[in-house]
């Protein structure tokens, strides 16, 4: 009789675990960034990403093996380069290539247009459009969402928590800072008389402030604009951060620009190359970018380990 009780108990325990660990059968329904209703039969197993930022999020939550297609510019992490590319997302998409990969979900970001989404929808492909996060809170939400879409909720939650903790650490460290150095972040300096920088309201602008600095581009009216070199000289920023380092701009070349050698930042050696992808791709690496900025602007606040 005891063994019978044990058997029944075990049976019910088994049933219980089966119920809690099984994926919910039936539809997962979402509303995407364009207000469209998106239904999935279950976590997506064959995902195509149309934006480098989304590729990074997918791999970060552990869904890398479920990515069967990517856009040409998705180059991080290195494993992404092994995924088949469907070409560039500039203009019309290569819908034939996308269709041939038989995706059950295509992820689009703001870099993709509603027309591109529609062209895929017309072919019967499930597309989810994600708006770019404008704050770190929205970034965590996006990470969790991608986790839900691909069946990696736990990993996504963990990632969101760890990102949040790191950001909080930076905010705390900067909280009592008295001196906020001024920063000029160069996006493109092809024309040194009016280089492109980030104005108010961009993630980079927010991150500079969060890392305890002041973005001199904050006086501009557009988010991405050309600033006059006279304004740079007038503001005389404490730091010059070269977001265009990847395009061959070196610290030495800054000093050679007419009038730039008189800037404090150049004379004090505070011209720093920076990987712009850490600021322009709305993904987990934004937190890396934030920590990078803290190291540059307030090295004294970075705990030595």
């Amino acid at each position, binding site marked *: 009789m005891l063994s019978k009780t044990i058997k029944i108990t075990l049976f019910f325990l088994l049933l219980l675990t089966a119920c809690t660990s099984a994926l919910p059968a039936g539809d997962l329904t979402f509303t995407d960034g*364009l*207000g*469209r209703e998106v239904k999935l039969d279950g976590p997506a197993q064959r995902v195509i990403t149309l934006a480098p930022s989304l590729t990074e999020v997918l791999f970060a939550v552990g869904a890398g093996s479920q990515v069967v297609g990517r856009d*040409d510019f998705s180059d991080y992490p290195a494993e992404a380069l092994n995924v088949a*590319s*469907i*070409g*560039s997302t*500039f*203009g*019309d*998409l*290569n*819908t*034939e*290539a996308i*269709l*041939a990969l*038989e995706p059950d979900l295509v992820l689009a970001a*703001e*870099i993709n*247009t*509603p*027309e*591109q*989404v*529609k*062209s895929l929808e*017309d*072919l*019967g492909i499930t597309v989810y459009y994600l708006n770019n996060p404008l704050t770190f809170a929205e970034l965590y939400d996006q990470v969790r969402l991608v986790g839900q879409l691909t069946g990696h909720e736990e990993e996504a939650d963990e990632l969101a928590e760890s990102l949040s903790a790191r950001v909080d650490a930076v905010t705390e460290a900067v909280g009592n800072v008295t001196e906020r150095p001024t920063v000029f972040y160069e996006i493109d300096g092809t024309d040194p008389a009016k280089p492109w920088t980030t104005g108010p309201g961009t993630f980079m602008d927010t991150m500079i402030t969060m890392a305890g600095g002041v973005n001199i581009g904050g006086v501009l009216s*557009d*988010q*991405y*604009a050309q600033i006059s070199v006279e304004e740079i000289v007038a503001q005389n920023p404490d730091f010059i951060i070269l977001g265009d380092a990847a395009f061959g701009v070196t610290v030495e070349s800054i000093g050679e620009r007419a009038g730039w050698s008189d800037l404090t930042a150049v004379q004090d050696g505070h011209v720093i190359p920076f990987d712009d992808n850490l600021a322009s791709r709305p993904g987990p690496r934004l937190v890396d970018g934030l920590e990078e900025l803290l190291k540059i602007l307030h090295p004294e606040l970075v705990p030595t380990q």
Partner: protein
Amino acid sequence: MRRFPFLPAFIFLLLALLLSLGIGSVFLSPAELLNSLTGRGSDLANSILWKIRLPRTVLIALTGMALGGSGAAYQGLFRNPLADPFLIGIASGAGLGAVLAMSVQWPYTFWGLMAIPLSAFFAALLTVAVVYFLARVGQTTPVTNLILAGVAVSAFATSLMSFLMLQSDGELRRAMSWLMGGSIQLGWTFTLAMLPYLLIGLGVLVFSGHALNLLQFGDEQAQQLGLDVVRVKRIILISASLATAAAVAFSGIIGFIGLVVPHLSRLWFGADYKRLLPLSILSGATLLLVSDVIARVVLAPQELPVGIVTALAGAPFFLWVLRRSKTQGLW
């Protein structure tokens, strides 16, 4: 070929259509294509043929027809070998309309997605109307005035559009890709939307051959030969602009076709507008289809905007034909 030009023109067009249906990123053998045409192929092949290649082929062919036909009409109207359908502001007007529409976040609905092409369409027509009324002198619109007003208004519209693009905060990419050759993948919706304007515009133009021939003698001469010059010019202008605006609004700005196709047709088939117009319409479709195939294939799986290919491939081709042509002063 000079005496019976329509047969080779139709044959070339048919070949171009087949090429466009047969070539793409995914290789489909002729057998598979045939199966799909009759509805028996695999799901993938059917989808590719019916939902991707066929709508695209039809849209490109119609756009090419519009550009070729109105290019010939404009060259006849302005009596100028450099005239092209964008001379009096259609391209800049459409661009301005499109960029203006892009600065608004339209809802993702049918009309929301039509907002940009419709805005481009009406802005293009509005620009032509503005140019026309600016160029009027009393009852007539001298051709020189039209050209000058067109150049000025185009410049204004283009710089306004560029300024708006600067303000766009992220829509810049979208605007640029539209300007290089718009979104041609919205299948039958766009094709059906542009069809009425195209049919009306091109329909009128096809029958304007005789009037254009007369206009080649000059406005006064044509008037004396019995042509109601003012009315005819207005009708031709409106029809050509209607067809071009529809083409540009739904396919983006594709240059070179409107300029070169009439010249090619003239070199091959002679300058009689009664034949030149229909032939330009057919050849425009052929040339644009071939350019589109090249745009799909040359850097596959990347797709080049077709507007880039038309000039890159079209210009050397045109120069080659020009050099080979033994007749001088055909213009």
